[in-house]
């Protein structure tokens, strides 16, 4: 065995381990928070904005970099929208100070 490891193999290692981490973390999410889970994963998958920034960056503007700029805008909608709407929902789940009349039985 000799030589360096192909980047694709390293990517595969990262991928498989990340799927395992995801699997175990997600099963622990409480069902009550499944909607915030969807909105926050939406925001997280918009990390694709990293690729969009690279696409948009070249100084020589051609149609590829214009598509990149559009992709940056689309992903930004998700980044901002996803995290903010998740925050808004989670605020609603904040435990209210138990008032006497609401304590129930």
């Amino acid at each position, binding site marked *: 065995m000799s030589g360096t490891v192909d980047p694709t193999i390293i*990517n595969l290692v990262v*991928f498989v381990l990340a*799927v395992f*981490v*995801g*699997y175990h*973390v*997600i099963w*622990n*999410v*409480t*069902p009550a*928070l*499944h*909607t*915030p*889970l*969807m909105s*926050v*994963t*939406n925001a*997280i*998958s*918009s*990390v*694709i*904005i*990293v*690729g969009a920034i*690279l*696409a*948009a*960056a070249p100084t020589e503007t051609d*149609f*590829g*970099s214009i598509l*990149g*700029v*559009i*992709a*940056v805008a*689309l992903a*930004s*909608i*998700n*980044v*901002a*929208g*996803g995290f*903010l*709407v998740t*925050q808004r*929902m*989670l605020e609603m*789940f904040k435990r*209210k100070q138990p008032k006497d*009349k*609401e304590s*129930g*039985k």
Partner: protein
Amino acid sequence: MSANQLTLWYLIASVCFILALKGLSSPTTARRGNLFGVIGMSIAVLTTLAVVARGRVDLILIAMLVGGSVGAIVARRVQMTQMPELVAAMHSMVGMAAVLIAIAVVNNPAAFGEHDPLPAGNRLELFIGTFVGAITFSGSVIAFGKLAGLGKKFRLFSSAPVVFKGQHLLNLALALVMIGFGVAFFLAPDKAWTPFLVMTAIAFVLGVLIIIPIGGADMPVVISMLNSYSGWAAAGIGFSLNNSMLIVAGSLVGSSGAILSYIMCKAMNRSFFSVILGGFGAAEGSAVAGGEQKTVRSGSADDAAFLMANAESVIIVPGYGLAVARAQHAVKEMANKLIEKGVSVRYAIHPVAGRMPGHMNVLLAEAEVPYDQVFEMDDINNEFGNTDVVLVLGANDVVNPLAHEKGSPIYGMPILEVAKARTVLVNKRSMAAGYAGLDNPLFYMDKTMMVFGDAKKVVEDIVKALD
């Protein structure tokens, strides 16, 4: 910044994303988790901006400002009842961004630090990321239309399944042709625009065709599935750009969506494939028209108020009808009145109630219902036997006792055992069948009283009667 430094920053961002998801294991840690998500995203964006500092950062910042403002405005204005539509719309953004980036990669691999022309291995990864992204985009657009109720204007968005003869065969053929062009793109020696673009176009069409036959109440599965796809698309792009953070974030999201789809399918006792193949609600209406006339007992909101006020314990079962009528605040008010009278009030939530996972929980949280009054199906199903009154608000299939009868289409689906309670109050707009097109024996039981009308109106009338 060196490539090593960049990768280390990306590692930190990836860990932040994992912590963001971990936080959601409890409502008390969830907000801190969200903060981790924001930190991770900021690190990812800032380090990448530092890498391209000599490029058109001005254009990028403008695009971020525009997109970010739109996102912020939408996030602030959206109603909680519209969350399923919003989530579908956001999935489509990720899908479209993946496709646009892929085109840019084919056009100019050097901008991404890749060889020009792109090596074959990266082309294969790019092909996968692109078609998944394209399917995510067009599929989410259809899902958005169905959820937003655009079906009246465009048949394509009809919430009833859109089915035609040879549909599955057509999908299969298109998928094979798409893969064929993908392979051609992979094998081509140079920039192979034609196979790439044809493959992408077919993927867009496939996304539409896959989602149109799936009906309204299967939406929780569809929306989780598209959530999953958007993650895999990001991971695919990460592979072709050799970007570990994109791979990690994409895999997290992909497995999250896959697990949610699994949970939703299990809660309907349906296999993933039977949902995807669709057409379940096709018999809607016809099943109701036939059959002998059975009698139901119906009562007014005053009767319902009287029954609940004199009960010791009440369980409220919310369904999609509650979301449609936006009755969550009225329900909270009613519950408060009952609690003041010394009645114990709890809520029972079926996993597929509503149009997306956790839909009912968010609506109740919006109305400031304390979450210790809200119970998941498995935690409350044993309690119905010693409950005086159950109030079913706009739910149907999830409380249908036919699920216990062999041979019925929903046999084996776990349901909320409301029929075990002493009295059952059911609010519905009419006697129309639920999504599954099945009659519901619950409505004809002696202990059941139907209260017809819009959920919000009925609950408000109950509140008045309780005064």
